[in-house]
């Protein structure tokens, strides 16, 4: 059987579960709102980075992206849903690839629209403080932001397939992003730069120092995501459903 019908089915499943489009809407709303807030707040900080300030709504907003990825997979681990799914599509690898694609595409599209909107709104608030941002940096920040949100959604999706539980994934990732990464991240050091969220966030900054640049940072996040997805795929393929 082909990939397209399976992908269509997985897309239908995401569309028809109200909480999933809801999570994407929350991603847009939270990111835009927090960016707008940061933009109007001004630039008293000496470490002020106008590009990151404009996109800083992503920090709280990414929780919605993570929830989207986690819930899209965890809906298969309720009361034997996965058995029904795999009875319809016994090629487990193909099924998981379709699921991942059906998460990646809307997450990327909504992520890009969100990044664009958040940037425009925050920039209006920042006014002349943001004059130093070049067009290249704008494009890099917005594009990177969309990709970053997609990668985080997929990272959560992979972990959920490993844990077979959305609650486990969210109770690991949310404290990690809000607390651990924040605390260790400020303590600096090169190891913290390679954490999945910290590495990917470099692309949101106008200026950066350290081992990783914007794209290599995003590549590190992509590696984390790939590892999580491979582990998830292994779990789906090897374990009894």
């Amino acid at each position, binding site marked *: 059987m082909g990939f397209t*019908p399976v992908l269509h089915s*997985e897309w*239908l*499943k995401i569309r028809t579960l109200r909480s999933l489009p809801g999570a994407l809407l929350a991603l847009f709303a939270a990111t835009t709102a927090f960016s707008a807030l940061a933009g109007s707040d001004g630039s008293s900080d000496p470490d002020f980075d106008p590009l990151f300030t404009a996109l800083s709504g992503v920090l709280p907003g990414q929780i919605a992206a993570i929830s989207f990825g986690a819930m899209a997979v965890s809906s298969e681990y*309720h*009361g034997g*849903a996965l058995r029904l799914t795999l*009875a319809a599509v016994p090629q487990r690898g193909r099924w998981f690839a379709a699921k991942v694609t059906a998460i990646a595409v809307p997450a990327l599209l909504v992520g890009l629209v969100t990044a664009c909107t958040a940037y425009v709104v925050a920039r209006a608030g920042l006014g002349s403080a943001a004059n130093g941002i070049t067009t290249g940096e704008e494009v890099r920040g917005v594009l990177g932001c969309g990709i970053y949100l997609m990668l985080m959604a997929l990272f959560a999706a992979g972990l959920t397939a490993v844990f077979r539980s959305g609650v486990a994934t969210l109770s690991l990732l949310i404290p990690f992003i809000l607390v651990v990464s924040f605390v260790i991240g400020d303590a600096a050091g090169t190891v913290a730069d390679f954490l999945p969220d910290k590495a990917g966030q470099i692309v949101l900054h106008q200026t950066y120092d350290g081992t990783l640049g914007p794209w290599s940072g995003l590549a590190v996040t992509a590696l984390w995501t790939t590892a999580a997805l491979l582990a998830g795929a292994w779990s789906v393929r090897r374990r*009894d459903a």
Partner: protein
Amino acid sequence: MTSIEVQALTKEYGTSRAVADLTFTVLPGRVTGFLGPNGAGKSTTMRLVLGLDRPTSGTATIGGRAYATLNEPLRHVGALLDAQAAHGSRTARDHLRALAVSNRVAVRRVDEVLEETGLTSVARRRVKTYSLGMRQRLGIAAALLGDPEVVMLDEPSNGLDPEGIIWIRALLRRLAGEGRTVLVSSHLMNETASFADHLVVLGRGRLLADTPMREFIDARVEPRVRVRTTDVTALKAALDRHGHDAVEHEDGHWTVRHARVDDIGRIASQAGVPLLELAAEEATLEQAYLDLTASETEFTAQRQEA
């Protein structure tokens, strides 16, 4: 025609054997009842047939092919494993649509199976508002979606109301009548007796019986005759003469064990005993099943002692 073939199938979870060296075939054109107490391995066997669990050894095939190698399997095999499989926040129609699309089943079939299972009026309601009986119907609708030649239902009458039980009985008979292969698990004997032609009985993961239902019952339950008379002494004397053993019941009727109505009727008539009632006591599947499992328990008890 497509049958389900199970060959030397074994599934171990850690040290416990859920299914042990199971071999049987489910043939098309009849309803096969899959019996056994809870935990006997019925659901595990069904999961193994569907390729959801990996067998420790042995094979399970459908029409000679492993389930995972079927192209668009919903068109060949329909299964109800768990009524909770549909996500509570999705509507029944969307749930079936997502399934149909994955196997390129026409969306028209979604409305057909909803109609067939009596869910049309609630099809656009979220599944979490459904009763257990409605979820069972939705699970059956999903099983019928691809118009499959093989239908496997795990405890389908769970939670169904009396009307639903009559409906599913007719449905199973019809599916078998259309030449499909129908395997239905249950732990309810009277329910199974009402629709099954053939029985596969499991106990502790092992095959206890694989026989036509009628034979299964006749081989295990002694025939009995129920008789009522106005002249008890004459009846008793006549039965004694022919070596029949009769037991009296409180309400005044007698039960003659190991006897058929043809014999008892003749004996009574020859002796001129007036009869008010003469009937064969219908042997039930439940009696036969309990007889089988009782001997099975003895067998396992003896084995453990040895």
